[in-house]
């Protein structure tokens, strides 16, 4: 264990060799993804298994999923800075970093996903404000900016950078008005998380995902924000737990995790009630008015059975909510982790069906179900952000004072 000026004082870090090996693995995976990205950019989207029925596929799912999971940043920020749950300051840095990774990944995937990446800025320049995607793009970019601002002070707290007086002050000053940034971020997040829900919800040509709502906002708008607020913190807890396991030390105190888990639990519980109500209304009113029975969406195809609805709502919704809102459930390490994993899976399944199953369901009566499996290029470019995330977290953890409680929990010899 060595300490250089680069590593925050009073914390233990693994050896340079160990760190390098770990990074090498991550970089190798990253390069694989970069190669696939290169293929897609230079040869075009024919490198994917998408087609005219699957204009949206794995990548859009990945986008929706990482943004939902990155929701931990805004919701923890909301709780910390706006509600004033000061305890959560002990995890907010990490939540912000995870959010930062998720959002930058989402932007990268979007840049790969569009057919004309060099014209991608048209979404801003020639914006159609009626499009949910425009709203997403603006909020996503703005919020990514906010996340960067939220992340920067932590970077400046690196011992080496902190020595630069300007950065030292900047870090301090940014901290001092962080609530303003966080509030803006929360405002943006409420909208783009919702807009992502709106993306599928407004498709009145797609009976599987179409939902009524209030004014221009379909119910999915609110459900997406809600579920991101519920499951994002779960993802933060999960990643914190994984980081603790990998670094073999405790980084955040249990009471912090418990508080976050409890709030998540109640969010999840209320969300799942709303989701069930939404599903019932959709299955009994919306879809039949379009000529569809609930089971039309879950039969006559090799993949999408009713199991996926049960998985999403019962197994990955009701079960984790029940665990998290009960003290006993929360306090059992196993049940807690089970619950956060289920919640994370649940939100991913929700995003999957809202994108992929929406497109799989035949709407024209004389068409059949459309099935899709991603090409390796799509898989590689989707794993790319994971590798990137591992690298950023590793670097951040090694060089930045991410966890305020780390020193207290791991007193040095």
């Amino acid at each position, binding site marked *: 264990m060595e300490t250089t000026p680069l590593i925050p004082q009073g914390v233990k870090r693994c050896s340079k060799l160990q760190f390098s090996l770990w990074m090498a693995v991550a970089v190798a995976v990253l390069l694989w993804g970069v190669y696939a990205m290169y293929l897609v950019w230079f040869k075009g989207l024919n490198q994917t298994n998408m087609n005219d029925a699957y204009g949206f596929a794995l990548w859009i799912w990945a986008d929706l999923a990482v943004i939902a999971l990155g929701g931990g940043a805004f919701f923890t920020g909301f709780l910390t800075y706006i509600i004033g749950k000061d305890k959560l300051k002990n995890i907010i840095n990490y939540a912000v970093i995870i959010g930062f990774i998720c959002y930058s990944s989402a932007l990268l995937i979007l840049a790969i996903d569009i057919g004309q990446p060099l014209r991608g800025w048209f979404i801003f320049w020639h914006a*159609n*404000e009626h499009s949910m995607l425009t709203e997403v793009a603006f909020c996503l970019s703005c919020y990514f900016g906010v996340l960067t601002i939220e992340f920067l002070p932590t970077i400046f707290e690196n011992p080496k950078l902190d020595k630069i007086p300007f950065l030292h*002050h900047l870090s301090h000053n940014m901290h001092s008005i962080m609530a303003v940034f966080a509030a803006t971020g929360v405002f943006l997040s409420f909208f783009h998380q919702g807009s992502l829900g709106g993306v599928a919800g407004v498709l009145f040509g797609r009976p599987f995902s179409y939902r009524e709502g209030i004014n221009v906002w379909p119910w999915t708008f609110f459900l997406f924000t809600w579920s991101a607020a519920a499951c994002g913190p779960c993802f933060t807890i999960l990643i914190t737990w994984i980081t603790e396991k990998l670094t073999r030390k405790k980084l955040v105190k249990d009471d912090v995790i418990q508080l976050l888990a409890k709030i998540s639990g109640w969010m999840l519980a209320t969300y799942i009630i709303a989701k069930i109500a939404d599903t019932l209304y959709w299955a009994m009113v919306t879809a039949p008015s379009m000529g569809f029975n609930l089971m039309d969406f879950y039969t006559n195809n090799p993949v999408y059975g009713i199991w996926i609805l049960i998985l999403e709502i019962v197994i990955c919704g009701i079960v984790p909510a029940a665990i998290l809102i009960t003290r006993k459930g929360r306090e059992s390490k196993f049940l807690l982790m089970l619950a956060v994993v289920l919640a994370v899976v649940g939100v991913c399944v929700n995003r999957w069906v809202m994108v992929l199953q929406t497109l799989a369901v035949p709407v024209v009566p004389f068409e059949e179900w459309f099935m899709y499996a991603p090409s390796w290029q799509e898989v590689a470019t989707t794993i790319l952000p994971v590798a990137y995330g591992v690298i950023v977290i590793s670097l951040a953890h090694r060089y930045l004072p991410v966890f305020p409680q780390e020193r207290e929990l791991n007193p040095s010899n």
Partner: protein
Amino acid sequence: MFPFNFEWAWDIPHLVFHGALWYVLSIVGLGLTYCIIKSAVDTFREEDKGDNH
């Protein structure tokens, strides 16, 4: 995005959407500018102090 884009219209959806957008951008921009200026001022003051010592 700007009033000089030809698809711009002075209607309610545009005003609501872009109003919100520019509002947010202003807050973030002003906040950031404030931090940078304040930090620069702080830095100079500190240096002045250091000089005085």
